[in-house]
């Protein structure tokens, strides 16, 4: 397989501005993941000490949907983001080879995944930087403000919870149905409040945030980004995924989420501060923002059942986290 990838890179040598005789070496990188995710490689040229390109191949060649959307999303954001610093932090797409041997080649990036060093002592400063990046991105890509009570926005939220309920197992269905009914009554209490809508990264988690010398340098993995959604979901994704990805890793995701997101005083304070900073800056009512957290869980769970992923196990993980959240936190947040 690697010979074909080499051949493809050399065929595109003009576009990539490399010599046709360049010596190419690869290092496979990435997480242990399920079938649908792509496999990534760092591409080293000649005797270079750092990689020149980043190449991604779908683990299953017929699953090109996510790879195609990654390429389209990167191209879209490179074209539309005006802030040069922000644009630099988004990987530059170089080419997408097509369906026979689907590969995306991007400019290689500097930095280390934030997830590798996610320990309590570093988290406050890492979060501040990551959230600063998020706020600039959301400000730049904000398309409109939705109003609570506005039919189309409420319909959007209900479509997320409705889909989640339709996929839920029959044992949990009564609990979640009642919970969401109560939640929407609470949300209705904020009638007239404004909330920004716009682009989201879609998977803004510590694995996809690259840092160099303590600064956020690049944000990778844009395959799940959406042009029009609820930007708050990116913030929630950072908080929730950090809670179960933080070192040390042990037990299941649900256990780590429960211990940290719901029980750890340190993490609760960090989450509270992050949500407050973000909401102040983006002019969002913080109590309203907190009510949207359960909808984020439903949004994430639904995504696991999309075509080509169809991962019921991860759907159940998100549903279990929502249940834990609902039991322990919602009574406080939802009053």
């Amino acid at each position: 397989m690697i010979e074909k990838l080499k051949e493809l890179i050399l065929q595109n040598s003009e576009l990539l501005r490399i010599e046709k005789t360049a010596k190419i070496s690869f290092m496979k990188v990435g997480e242990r993941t399920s079938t649908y995710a792509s496999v990534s490689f760092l591409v080293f040229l000649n005797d270079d000490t750092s990689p020149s390109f980043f190449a991604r191949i779908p683990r299953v060649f017929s699953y090109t949907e996510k790879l195609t959307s990654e390429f389209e999303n990167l191209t879209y954001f490179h074209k539309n983001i005006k802030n040069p610093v922000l644009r630099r932090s988004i990987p530059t797409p170089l080419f997408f080879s097509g369906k026979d041997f689907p590969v995306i080649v991007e400019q290689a990036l500097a930095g280390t995944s934030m997830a590798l060093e996610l320990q309590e002592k570093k988290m406050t400063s890492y979060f501040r930087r990551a959230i600063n990046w998020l706020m600039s991105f959301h400000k730049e890509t904000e398309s409109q403000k939705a109003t609570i009570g506005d039919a189309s926005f409420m319909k959007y939220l209900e479509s997320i919870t409705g889909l989640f309920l339709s996929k839920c197992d029959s044992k949990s269905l009564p609990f979640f149905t009642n919970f969401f009914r109560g939640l929407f009554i609470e949300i209705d209490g904020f009638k007239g409040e404004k909330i920004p809508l716009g682009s989201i990264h879609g998977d803004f988690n510590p694995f996809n945030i690259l840092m160099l010398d303590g600064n956020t340098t690049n944000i990778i993995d844009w395959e799940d980004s959406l042009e029009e959604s609820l930007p708050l979901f990116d913030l929630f994704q950072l908080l929730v995924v950090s809670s179960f990805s933080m070192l040390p890793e042990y037990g299941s995701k649900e256990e780590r989420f429960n211990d940290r997101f719901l029980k750890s005083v340190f993490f609760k304070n960090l989450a509270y501060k992050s949500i407050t900073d973000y909401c102040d800056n983006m002019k969002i009512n913080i109590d309203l923002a907190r009510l949207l957290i359960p909808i984020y869980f439903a949004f994430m769970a639904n995504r696991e059942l999309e075509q080509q992923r169809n991962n019921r196990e991860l759907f159940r993980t998100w549903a279990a986290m929502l249940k834990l959240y609902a039991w322990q936190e919602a009574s406080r947040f939802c009053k």
Partner: protein
Amino acid sequence: MTSNLHFCCPKCKTPLLEEENCFKCRVCQVEWSIDSDIPSFITNEFYWNQISKENMNRLLQIARDEGWRVALEKILLPLTNRYTFNYAVNESRADWHFMLPAKTDAEILDLGCGWGPVTIPLARHYRTVVGADTTAETLKFLQIRAKQEKIENIKLAHVDPLDYGNLPFSDSQFDLVVMNGMLEWIGAARLDMPPQACQQLALTEIRRILKPNGIIYIGIENRFSLDNFLGSGSHSKVPFADILPRPLANLWCKMVGKKDGYRTYIYSSFEYKKLLFQCGYNDFSLFLPIPSYRDPCLIIPTDNEKIIKYYVEHSINSIPKKQLGRFVPLSVKLFATDYSITASAAK
């Protein structure tokens, strides 16, 4: 079974004749049965699995009725742990194949295919994959899994442990033979020969069935890994047994209650190269699978020191970059936990 896979008698290597529901050796006059499309070449019943035979049969029933993944969630997960569940499910376990020079028309043999997390992803990319295992139940599971995943290019074979070097495949058939977590166990099932001799027998037998310049892939532990120096004792579960000279390791294992002594031989990178060379292989390549060959996140080629250096710089931030001389990349290579190895069959 389609015609491009040719079986031979595991004992005399004469091509087998396919008859109704069996394969027959005209020289030995032995018949090998075919049960639900899986030919069986075993001489002794053998069962190795993470769960008991009774639970495995329950799992197979659920796999047939409700799907293979549900069966693993309902039986394997509660009886074992999440690691074992992921071990059975994660197709990323075969990501090393992207680093190999194999072409899409390759014929592949996956020895010790187990639950199929390596066989299935290989079948998604290459022409034919033969999954061989000593346990009939896991082969049946893999058959169900492949069918439900709509994968039609997997063939299965029930074989004896490789310790006897009796593979039922005709000469020069495969472009790639996979031994992922396999080589170290060869020698454990046969006590009348030293483990290394059993391993040599198996590697030589594999060379026979590889096409000229066909590739063997081995995923295995490093004898001199840092973990072993710290007393982890990989497969023997006896601390320091792997790093001791073999006779001492044998004595040490017997002293701590292992009646068969030390039999799960693993080697250093130099020793693997030597072992493969002795068995007729060349073009030895070594990769570092991190954190483990069982489910690698990173796969680092060792022929480019700068890539190892890059990995060290980016994974261990506390090391000052300017102080990374030659010593660190070399140590990473020598004391790595596991290796992914490829070599070509010299013919």
